[in-house]
């Protein structure tokens, strides 16, 4: 038994259809610049003039920053309260609208699939759909994310 996750919800405690309400994050100019300098130094994430002239039409967060902040919301609202055992990846990530400076993002995650790992009886695979929106309730990012979860009782969990 893993002492770190022993008291958390395990695979057996999760159900398809469960909806997790995520917290929010407000994106400041400093946050956009700091992330862009390290991971996405394209002119339209680093310079307001270049941003206005770009397809984005103004200073916007790197899509990777939106993704990272959404992940943080998921960890705080959900992954740190279950026996999560690492991400497997994601699919169909769509940046539907740019996240502009001053926007507040939030949203929900829904459990859409649960199955046991074929090769590893100690794990289940959890699939979540993330729906991230801005303060006007316009969708900014959606994706489907898969994560491993520890099984409490390897013999009996279905």
């Amino acid at each position, binding site marked *: 038994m893993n002492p770190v996750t022993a008291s958390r919800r395990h695979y057996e405690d999760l159900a398809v259809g469960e909806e997790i309400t995520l917290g929010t994050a407000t994106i400041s100019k400093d946050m956009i610049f700091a992330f862009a300098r390290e*991971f996405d130094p394209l002119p339209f994430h680093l310079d307001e003039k270049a941003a206005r002239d770009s397809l984005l039409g103004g200073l916007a967060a790197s899509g990777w920053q939106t993704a990272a902040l959404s992940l943080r919301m998921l960890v705080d609202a959900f*992954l740190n309260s279950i026996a999560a055992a*690492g991400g497997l990846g*994601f699919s169909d990530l769509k940046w539907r609208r740019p996240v502009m400076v001053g926007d507040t993002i939030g949203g929900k995650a829904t459990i859409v699939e649960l199955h046991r790992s074929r090769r590893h009886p100690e794990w289940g695979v959890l699939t979540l759909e993330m729906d991230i929106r801005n303060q006007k309730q316009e969708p900014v990012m959606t994706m489907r994310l898969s994560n491993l979860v520890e099984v409490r009782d390897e013999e009996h969990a279905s």
Partner: protein
Amino acid sequence: MTRWFEDIVENETFPLGSHTFTAEEIIRFGKLYDPQYFHIDPEAAAYSHFGGLIASGWHTVSVGHRKMVDALDAEGERLREAGQEPGVSGPSPGINGMEFKSPVRPGDTVSYTLTVTGKRSSASIPGWGLLFNRISAINQRDELVYLADLVAFSKLRDYRMPLRLRLAQALTRLPGFSKLQRR
């Protein structure tokens, strides 16, 4: 590649360079964006099936993105030095798939490679094309770290805007247009 869309060749492969991950930066990224115990706490991480600290997959991927941006810049610089006008890379509409294959531990060196797997002109944004890029990341033991299928906008060089669109664009530049639009 800050090349024009027309000059990008399908199946061309670009090495993007490598990055060595330190425990310090793994923890720093983890605390900001992915504070699960195996990304931020080496002692607690020992109880996980990883047996120790590992980088958030999103960290490995964000570094891969940085490597790609640097390669685009270098290609643009190369063209400028050769006396050519470089192309324009645009934002990305999304990622079709991302598979995390093996964990990245402190001290691991990850090498990134980009392959253009396809391209077509955009149906929704005139004057731009879509590039389908695959990034593969491997570690110093030649193990696959992740595989990503990305989509990116790239500007067309040989695009002439249809008259209808040029008129519409001229209209938006008339004084008072934005006020009118807000109503």
